[in-house]
């Protein structure tokens, strides 16, 4: 789960961090509320999460990145 400011570009940069590492995105939801956005991104392989995690954190505008377990995803989505 990625929390970010609503400045244009966070969605593109987030997707880019996956695509440049050749990590397929399984599913993606994007929600904008007031001045922040929330994205949930699912990947097929657990090991891919670690490959991309730090790079998501350094995107300007991203305020928090959390890794959710499958059960949590089921509850929160």
């Amino acid at each position: 789960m990625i929390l970010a400011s609503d400045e244009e570009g966070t969605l593109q940069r987030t997707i880019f961090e996956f695509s440049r590492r050749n990590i397929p995105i399984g599913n993606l939801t994007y929600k904008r509320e007031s001045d922040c956005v929330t994205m949930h991104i699912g990947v097929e392989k657990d090991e891919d999460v670690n490959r991309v995690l730090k790079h998501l954190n350094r995107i300007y505008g991203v305020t928090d990145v959390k890794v959710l377990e499958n059960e949590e995803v089921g509850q929160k989505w």
Partner: protein
Amino acid sequence: MRGAKLLLDSLSHRGVDTIFGIPGGASLSIYEEMASTDLRHILGRHEGSTVFMADGFSRVARKPGVFLGTSGPGATNAVTGVATAYTDSSPVICITGQVATQSMGRDAFQEADSFNLMVPVTKWNFKLRHGGEIPSVIGKAFKIATTGRFGPVAIDVPSDLVSREVDPDSILPYSEVEPADTSDLSELPNAVSMIRGSSRPVILAGGGVRWSDSGAIVMKLAEKIGAPVVTTVMGKGGIPEDHPLALGTAGMHGRRSSQWALGESDLVIAVGTRFSDRTTGKTSGFLPKARVIHIDIDRAEIGKNIPGVVGLAGNSSDVLKAITDRVEYQADGRGDWVRQVSEIRTFCQCDFDLPGNPIKPQKLMSELSRLLPDDAILTTDVGQHQMFASHFFETRGKREFVTSGGLGTMGFGFPAAVGAKIAAPDRKVVSIVGDGGFQMSYSEFITAVENNVPVFTVIMNNQSLGMVRQFQKQFYGNKIYAADYQRSPDFAKFAEAMGGEGVMVERASEIGEALRRGLKSDVPFIADIRVDINEDILPMTPPWMGQEGTIYGRCKWRDLKIEEPHDISQR
């Protein structure tokens, strides 16, 4: 106030006095306003190379160079320049015009989605939504570009937002952006303990050492703990290479002394490096005996290419100072290591002043090392000459080395020299280029002439794409195809035709005089040095092979087993 004036005032407020640009329909309001300011405008010939100028300026001034282009092709042409800056962490500010907001999305003339084009090659980018945003966006752009790991920021400026008056009440206040503090020194005690327990420490200095200007603290730590210092190509120039502990560049075309030190070390303190494939080669054989302390301002780099490191995230200077303050003087206790390093260094200081004709590139590097002032700035293009310079040219004293190390962009070297000279007008700026790369941006030679920027260009001319040729020769069955040029310009005559000066050199004995002329010239000058097409840049370790795959050529190390260098002093 008109949006265009607000934009230029905002740039001036950030200390900008020079803009590198090419005008076009979508940016003409900005140019109309610029005509009545004191800003210096360097009118380039192609947007890509004009961004290289801004990048060269950034790398030498250690502050943002500003590029201003138009919409559509102005932005698409700029992408390679911005990508080059991004890969090497250079804080270029790229401002491009855009079609008017009411035309966006209608495939208007010279419309391109510049915003999304720039996303993958910038640290951040903005699309202006109204004129009142201009000062705050410029403020944020400069802050983002120059905090944490530096990087380019792009701003897309619709033409109507700068051509119109901006309602003063709509101007957004600039609130200082304070990027989150991502430093993490929690492993500092562990790192200090590792240094204390090491018997063969080595410091690997990368481009971050140059950007953070932490060369002096690197050498202080090196002297304190008795560690040789090896640089990456991007780190070259960050430390003085005439220091007894400096071993030169490592990597694919690096010095064997550096490769030896990394191979023998039990502890590598890596500073501001991302462990690129050109530095590590095959990672499985890289640092076979060493644990690694990785210092980087960008947390994402720690552990990215070399896993299992002890990471210290933060500004290199701050982290190194913290370490240096905590470790005791240990150099005497590592006397055997320091002595061995000294012997290896002496062995590797080979005589490469190769005589005879056709001219050998090593001879040219020897003459450049001998004749350039100790505060000269050497920019390179990309290819064989870049690796010859990286290996053989000595960045002693305050010399700087500016190169496109990450993206490896041909055409970078000469325009970057123009930007570097504008940033440092009192220093000699020399651009060493190949004939292939120079032809990708030599239209900017006349830009240097008309702006009175006397850069000295040394063309290592083998009438070929030398590195392509070398790879075809070594790894593609010696089938030389599409590498050699059938026709080659007379670059000395070209220089004269553009209003500069030039000389062609075909004999080794004439190099010194040509270089002296170029260094004295007060106009842009080209020394077209015709070199031996068959002289490869060796040694070379192909990135897909380990040290055992090294091709040595003339290098003395060919007769040694790299794991048994202890008898070097007897040779």
